[in-house]
């Protein structure tokens, strides 16, 4: 859900009379919400434990059985269903194409003992491409990354992941760009698509992984299709937003020259939206990489495989190394695409490098790369990356670090987990999940109405009705509790670290790479250490959610606070405001748009980790999804849980948007 939409420009209203009025309205609404909660608690005291719609571990409702039966009927029809025949054919073609690419660069092309092109050739070509599309700094980054893939002993897995990512991102562009144009031109298409894209981004992959296998077969084909489902939405949304944002006056000016639709699109809109489109491609690439470990559950090739196989052995070090290589790949692709788009602009403005020199270096690089490819086809040392002890050293070093960390902080961590669990989680969960469903439901609708008006109330009513229908009400309320508590922690972190980063550029410099890492490292890498600290509890799930969600929120807050104009700050300083006053009275209120967006994104990212939470003892909807993924007879329950997660996400998103809109 707008998980990656470009942030709207923060409101730049100067402080004055209007905010004062808004503040009063805000206070009265807060009082109203508290009133609703007070009534809720009062009724709860007399009715708790009734009609909570609790289902035990393997209990199912007729709706779930219907979902399961539908899946079974599709499965039973696989030999005669023309759609499956068709998609299966497509899947086989995919597998063949990726297998061919693998034999080129990552696996032995029998009877050759090695791939057609060895590491030296691939590295040289990649470095050359880095220079050609961006600059020499990117070329160096690419070179260092590729050497790391080899030196740490995961050359072939890294190449596989790159292949799958490139194929998925390439297809995303082919499928996504026309759709982006469509939603930019047709308002109605946009409304329809928003909900569909929300569904694609919030539906847990575990729900559709097995059905996709049914349609596309085991291995690379399913990996690509699953990646597409998850990675396509950011591109459509962001590129659509970019095309739509091309200013009307520009279009009018060029229209007056009598251009056709096609000319207008290709000569004006797409070039002018280019930077936003690159952001979209960039986000799509990151989303694609985050599917790496999930795809390895169905034999999808790539760096996710060693991560997963280390997890089943509780081998922390064995998971950390490939996990960090995924981070490295993400950073490399992120920086390269960004630099490439910036370079395009520089060149367009005539600020690029001297074209003659550039051409010469390009030519030389090309020859060098060609020679490297040639050599790597002939000699074993250039074909197969020489073995190094780095992998084992890094693994045992990570093991030792993690062991030290968990030993040192185990006690503190346990205390923290208990404090949050007993102090916040349990009381909130008692109210939300132990209330009769009609009580919790009406209270939530009432709160939405107070916070966001009619639109929010309607959204809440529809989504809660859906939850009731799907039959996992009790689990949904527990997941909602955890999501809210985790989002609260995310926002505390975002405010503290975001403001700090905005005020000190040295802090920004140190934290940013760590935030990038938190966003791109597969959760399976840090599950074991987090479990070692907190045990299988809801708090562990919350920590996993915070690790994943906080970086995005922190960055949004930092960028928002940084965007507050220097002039305003100086004005407030001249009146003798303390640092604390400056932050709370000027910077934060003026960055409000970014804070709202940070909370919204934080919430949805936390919810996206619900399934991981189910794997570390948090139970609720996440567990139900994993159950449906693991036992074929429970698929219907898993699907219902997945849909419930989608509904929770849409409800929270819509209510928050309406509430933010309401305050302006």
């Amino acid at each position, binding site marked *: 859900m707008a998980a990656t939409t470009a942030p709207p420009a923060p409101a730049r209203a100067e402080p004055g009379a209007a905010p004062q009025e808004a503040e009063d309205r805000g206070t009265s609404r807060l009082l109203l919400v508290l009133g609703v909660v007070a009534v809720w608690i009062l009724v709860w005291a007399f009715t708790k434990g009734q009609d909570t719609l609790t289902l035990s*571990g393997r209990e199912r409702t007729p709706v779930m059985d219907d979902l399961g039966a539908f899946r079974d009927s599709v499965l039973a029809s*696989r030999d005669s269903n023309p759609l499956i025949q068709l998609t299966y054919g497509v899947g086989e073609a995919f597998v063949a194409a990726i297998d061919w690419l693998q034999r080129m660069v990552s696996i032995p092309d029998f*009877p050759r003992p090695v791939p057609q092109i060895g590491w030296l050739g691939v590295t040289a070509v990649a470095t050359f491409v880095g220079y050609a599309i961006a600059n020499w700094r990117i070329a160096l980054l690419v070179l260092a990354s590729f050497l790391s893939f080899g030196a740490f002993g995961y050359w072939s897995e890294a190449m596989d992941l790159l292949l799958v990512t490139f194929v998925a991102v390439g297809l995303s562009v082919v499928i996504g760009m026309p759709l982006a144009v469509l939603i930019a031109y047709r308002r109605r298409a946009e409304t329809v698509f928003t909900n569909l894209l929300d569904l694609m981004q919030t539906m847990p992959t575990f729900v559709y992984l097995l059905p996709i296998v049914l349609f596309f077969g085991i291995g690379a084909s399913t990996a690509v299709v699953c990646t597409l489902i998850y990675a396509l939405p950011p591109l459509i949304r962001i590129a659509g937003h970019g095309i739509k944002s091309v200013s009307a006056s520009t279009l009018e000016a060029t229209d007056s020259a009598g251009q056709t639709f096609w000319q207008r699109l290709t000569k004006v809109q797409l070039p002018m939206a280019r930077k936003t489109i690159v952001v979209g491609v960039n986000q799509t690439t990151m989303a694609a990489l985050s599917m790496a470990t999930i795809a390895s559950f169905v034999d999808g090739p790539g760096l996710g495989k060693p991560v997963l196989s280390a997890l*089943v052995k509780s081998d922390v070090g064995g998971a950390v190394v490939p996990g960090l290589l995924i981070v490295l790949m993400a950073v490399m692709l992120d920086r390269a695409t960004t630099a490439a788009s910036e370079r395009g602009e520089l060149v367009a403005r005539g600020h690029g490098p001297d074209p003659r020199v550039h051409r010469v270096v390009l030519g030389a690089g090309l020859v060098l790369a060609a020679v490297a490819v040639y050599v790597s086809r002939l000699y074993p040392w250039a074909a197969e990356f020489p073995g190094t002890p780095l992998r084992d050293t890094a693994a045992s070093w990570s093991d030792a670090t993690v062991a030290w960390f968990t030993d040192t902080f185990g006690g503190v961590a346990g205390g923290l987990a208990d404090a949050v669990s007993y102090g916040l989680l349990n009381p909130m969960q008692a109210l939300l999940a132990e209330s009769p469903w009609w009580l919790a439901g009406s209270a939530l609708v009432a709160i939405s109405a107070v916070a966001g008006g009619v639109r929010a109330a309607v959204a809440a009513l529809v989504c809660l009705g859906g939850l009731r229908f799907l039959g996992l009400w009790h689990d949904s309320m527990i997941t909602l509790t955890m999501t809210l508590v985790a989002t609260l922690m995310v926002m505390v972190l975002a405010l503290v670290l975001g403001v700090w980063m905005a005020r000190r550029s040295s802090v920004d410099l140190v934290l940013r790479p760590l935030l990038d890492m938190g966003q791109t490292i597969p959760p399976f890498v840090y599950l074991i250490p987090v479990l070692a600290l907190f*045990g299988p509890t809801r708090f562990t799930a919350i920590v996993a959610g915070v690790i994943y969600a906080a970086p995005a929120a922190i960055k949004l807050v930092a960028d928002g606070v940084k965007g507050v104009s220097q002039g305003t700050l100086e004005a407030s300083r001249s009146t003798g405001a303390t640092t604390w006053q400056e932050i709370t009275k000027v910077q934060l209120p003026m960055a409000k748009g970014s804070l709202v967006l940070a909370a919204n994104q934080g919430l949805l990212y936390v919810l996206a980790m619900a399934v991981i939470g189910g794997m570390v003892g948090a139970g609720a909807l996440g567990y139900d999804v994993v159950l449906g993924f693991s036992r074929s007879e429970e698929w219907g329950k898993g699907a219902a849980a997945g849909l419930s997660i989608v509904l929770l996400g849409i409800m929270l998103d819509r209510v928050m948007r309406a509430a933010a809109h309401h305050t302006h």
Partner: protein
Amino acid sequence: MLNQLTKARWAVVAACSALALTACGGGTIEQQTEENAAAAAEAGGECGELNMAVNPWVGYEANAYVVGTVAERELGCTVNYKDLKEDVSWQGFGTGEVDVVIEDWGHPDLEKKFFEGTGDGSATDFGPTGNVGIIGWYVPPWLAAEHPDILDYKNLNKYAEEFATSESGGLGQFLGADPSYVQFDEAIVSNLGLDFKVVFSGSEAASIQAFQKAEENKEFLIGYFYEPQWLFAELPLEKVSLPPYEAGCQDDPAKVACDYPETELKKIVSTEWAESGSPSVDLVKNFSWTNEDQNLVAKYISQEGMSPADAAARWVEENPDKVEAWLG
């Protein structure tokens, strides 16, 4: 400056090309390619390919790679190991993507869908692996040593408070397992009148971490676990006795009040492959070993950090007589 750089690059290019040209004939890659091609032509491809599903637990890996290694070495098969969850593996029988599931813990729903008679007949039961799954309620060794009476379910209520956690709502916590396993613990707890609440760990990794942490910090913990499992080499969990299993006592999931039965682990294969006449069919059919055998290979993988292929190769070399028996 830039010109110099360019010159330097050209020098490198020249050097590289010279190197490449002079050593052209004797490339070992070329030699090996020829050798591989010749070897393939000689083998005649009687076995062909064997698609081995690899489900995500170490014991399974041990079975899969030992059988795969023998198939490769003795029968000249090309073994494709495919990392898959159970459901996907069974789905793959019908499409030819999977030939063998080498350790099955019982999937009544999948059997109904894919066995002859009730389903489409794409899967066939190929008999026991010789491994016996012992499912039950386990506690960490320190707890069994300190409070031996805890190993009888009748005494569990006495300690219920000690087992309470932030997750268990005031009752004792019983740690349920990875949802891949059939579990009746909620019913057993309530039907035996135990003051416990089942909290699901949600994954094998989470259960293992919990037991390791409980042993290290001397915490009370009871949960669902099973043998054979590599963890026992490091942490010999103790089994709590429940009312013994009798035939039929688990038929109605809501009324279960007895222990889990010993589970005979089975081999499930693709029907089409089983009828293909490949020499690997007899190997898989004959394959049978003990829990000790599997535990040893699992230990090589999980404790000694060997790759599954290396661990299997080591065991195969150490146990020629057992391997011989499978080849018939």
